[in-house]
């Protein structure tokens, strides 16, 4: 069948896998953005820098302290999350009563500062990060070769996304978050500590970005600009999925990764722009996004 349309199956599945990998990162990152936007009403432009920080923290843990990949997968998000908590307490909490634009400017400025600091210290040529020994090699699936690490990225990202969805949609804590998102004043008037929820949510969103950064470290090189390149696409993903929708962010993230991969097979010239074309169409047809609720 594949020969019929002149595409060898290796190329098709190879690009499909690549699309899934990219989709994994889109999904985790847009999920973090959606969670943060939902509760804080802040468009977190620092997200790409925080993803990059995750990769760098893993690199520093390995090269400076000798802590390997697996502990880093937990430690880097925690360290980045704490930096997020500090940012929220110091800066963001002063902006909630103002227009979105102020939060956007502040987080954009922070992103530039963080990226500048890392570029200044580490240069911009990129640092290598080895795939952990357990995940080297790959599987021959007959129709294609699947590198173990890439398979792991997809699985890990799916698990983290679904776990996040579960916590938000199915637990008591999640009910607090949804209530505080919908009506913070009333939620607070029930005796729930909304400011604490907001701080922890930002920390968690940043932690998600850093987790994606650690996952990405062995795939792409660890580079101060790695987040800046990615975040533009991720924002398009968030716009397509609908700001603030949890499930929307996950589904759109994976879906657009796959679409991007398929475009590389069938019409490579459009692969870099296809997501933005879809974004334009969605904005025209359904401005709140595919999964967004109109206010």
């Amino acid at each position, binding site marked *: 069948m594949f020969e019929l349309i002149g595409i060898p199956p290796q190329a098709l599945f190879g690009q499909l896998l690549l699309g899934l990998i990219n989709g994994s990162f889109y999904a985790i990152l847009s999920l973090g953005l959606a969670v943060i936007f939902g509760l804080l009403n802040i468009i977190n432009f620092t997200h790409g820098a925080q993803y990059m920080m995750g990769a760098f923290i893993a690199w520093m843990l390995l090269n400076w302290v000798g802590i390997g990949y697996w502990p880093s997968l937990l430690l880097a998000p925690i360290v980045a999350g704490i930096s997020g908590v500090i940012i929220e307490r110091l800066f963001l909490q002063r902006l909630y009563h103002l227009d979105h634009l102020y939060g956007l400017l502040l987080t954009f400025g922070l992103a530039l500062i963080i990226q500048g600091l890392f570029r200044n210290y580490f240069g911009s040529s990129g640092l290598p990060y080895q795939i952990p020994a357990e995940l080297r090699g790959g599987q021959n699936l007959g129709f294609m070769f699947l590198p173990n690490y890439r398979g792991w990225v997809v699985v890990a990202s799916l698990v983290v996304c679904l776990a996040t969805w579960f916590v938000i949609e199915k637990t008591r804590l999640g009910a607090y978050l949804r209530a505080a998102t919908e009506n913070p004043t009333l939620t607070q*008037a029930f*005796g*729930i500590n909304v400011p604490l929820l907001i701080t922890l949510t930002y920390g968690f969103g940043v932690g998600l970005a850093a987790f994606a950064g650690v996952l990405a470290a062995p795939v792409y090189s660890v580079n101060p600009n790695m987040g800046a390149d990615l975040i533009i696409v991720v924002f398009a993903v968030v716009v397509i999925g609908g700001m603030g929708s949890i499930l929307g962010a996950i589904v759109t993230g994976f879906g657009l990764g796959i679409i991007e991969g398929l475009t590389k097979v069938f019409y490579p010239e459009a692969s870099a722009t296809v997501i933005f074309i879809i974004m334009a169409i969605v904005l025209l047809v359904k401005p709140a996004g595919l999964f967004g609720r109109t206010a």
Partner: protein
Amino acid sequence: MAEALDMTRPAATTPMLEVRDLNAWYGESHVLHGVNLDVAEGEVITLLGRNGAGKTTTLKSIIGIIGKRTGSIRFQGEETVAMSSRAIARLGIGYVPEERGIFSSLSVEENLMLPPQVRPGGMSVEQIFELFPNIKERLTSQGTKLSGGEQQMLAIARILRTGAKFLLLDEPTEGLAPVIIEQIGRTISRLKSEGFTIILVEQNFRFAQTVADRHYLVEQGRVVDMIPNAELDRNIDKLHAHLGV
């Protein structure tokens, strides 16, 4: 204001809630101009008045969700005028907002379980189901899919779980059918008999008369009169003049 203070003299015991010279603002607009009122433990009092008189704002000030407020609000002797709404709720005050405040992103069950326990001795879920059987049948529905009456029951029910014994009910009968209003009236009477203290904001003084001990008339951000329930019929002309009904 001396005259106003006279009217608000509590029955016999020291009041559970004591509001003195309460001023409140929405942004730049000055809405309450020195509200004085007292509520004794176990009492049901109403705030009667026209739209925009300041009844809802008074409740919001007591629970602490009005940004700027001055004067004094003492709850069980503790000054709360500068406290956050979270801390005020934790003292044991339950708030049922106008329009009920049911969360659409939460199921009925999640709405019911949302407010944390603030005092021991709140109603168990079983007792709540016994009081409001409709809620039990709709637990998995989206909160706002309930009928208006059911949403009102849910808004009251979720507060009863928390152990708060002092309730602020903002127009619980608004827009509801007479049968439902009757049911809410019975619920309020039952809560009173169980020792709850309630401030009720009402436009419907016929309803208020069936449940309350005393009535405060609110006009232009002030309490202008206090009428014990027994004297309500004798003051009916005054009431008409104030409420414009």
